[in-house]
């Protein structure tokens, strides 16, 4: 039986340094991550969180911090109906390839058949599509008011 994991690769015309900032700076994430701000001291073992309108949505701790190559953190969704699911793990790998950066996002340690797996499988493509648009065009994707936004 294969473990549930979600892997998504995208290629973005940017530099590893700009992409790194986009992943770790709250002002930046707020623009493409649908209003979610990230905050952390960004040291290995230190806590981090995503919040939207002062409400914490995702929290965890930093597992790897190797700018501008690899970022990894644990992932605990703070929604009450997901609290019982195990802490999962997100890893971002950034590889410069000529004028583009290959970004691979791996989300693993997920519960088999859990709701987190379903949620993140719908969420990552939206977040990463908006991130790519912001870095390449200067604008994130416009808000999605229709069923896509609800995943």
């Amino acid at each position, binding site marked *: 039986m294969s473990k549930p994991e979600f892997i998504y690769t995208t290629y*973005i015309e940017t530099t590893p340094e700009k992409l790194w900032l986009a992943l770790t700076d709250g002002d930046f994430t707020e623009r493409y991550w649908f209003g979610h701000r990230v905050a952390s001291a960004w040291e290995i073992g230190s806590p981090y969180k995503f919040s939207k309108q002062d409400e914490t949505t995702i929290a965890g701790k930093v597992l790897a911090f190797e700018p501008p190559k690899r970022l990894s953190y644990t992932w605990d969704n703070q929604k009450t109906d997901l609290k019982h699911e195990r802490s999962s793990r997100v890893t971002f790998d950034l590889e410069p390839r000529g004028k583009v950066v290959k970004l691979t996002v791996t989300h693993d340690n997920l519960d088999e058949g859990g709701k987190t797996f379903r949620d993140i499988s719908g969420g990552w493509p939206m977040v990463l599509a908006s991130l790519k*648009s912001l870095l390449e065009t200067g604008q994130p*994707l*416009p808000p*999605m008011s*229709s069923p896509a*936004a609800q995943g």
Partner: protein
Amino acid sequence: MRKPEFIYVSYIETTPERLWEALTNSAFTKRYWFDTEVRSDWKVGSPFALVMGDKTTDTGAILEADRPRRLSYTFKHQLFEEMRNEPATKVVFTIEPHGKIVKLTVTHEGFIEGSKLLGAVSKGWPAILSGLKSLLETGEVLAIPPDALGIEGFD
């Protein structure tokens, strides 16, 4: 056991018509699909081919062509021997408008267990679809070096 298949979702600021054109017009595909032309008259039952330079890399037949919502074709690799011997697979593009954005879902299925073709297309589609999104949103070609994909024989 999870089925051996590849699914990729992207969100693109464009219209369903423009996206349909981008998937079916060979002058357009050459710009983002690593110089590959898609050749077909896009009628159900008609042949389909991907041609890169003077080499036909993949062939198939059109299964569905519901412009601009859903396109599917069979897909059999022709170039590399190991993958040429695998049975035909199936590619489905689903295009859904959401306000100013289009959600594109690409599903590639029908692989045998341990398929080499599945490994290759899983590396190929993210690069092709990243290039497609960039071209539609910026008008510029995304310069992905072919060897960045990590596909043996493609560099």
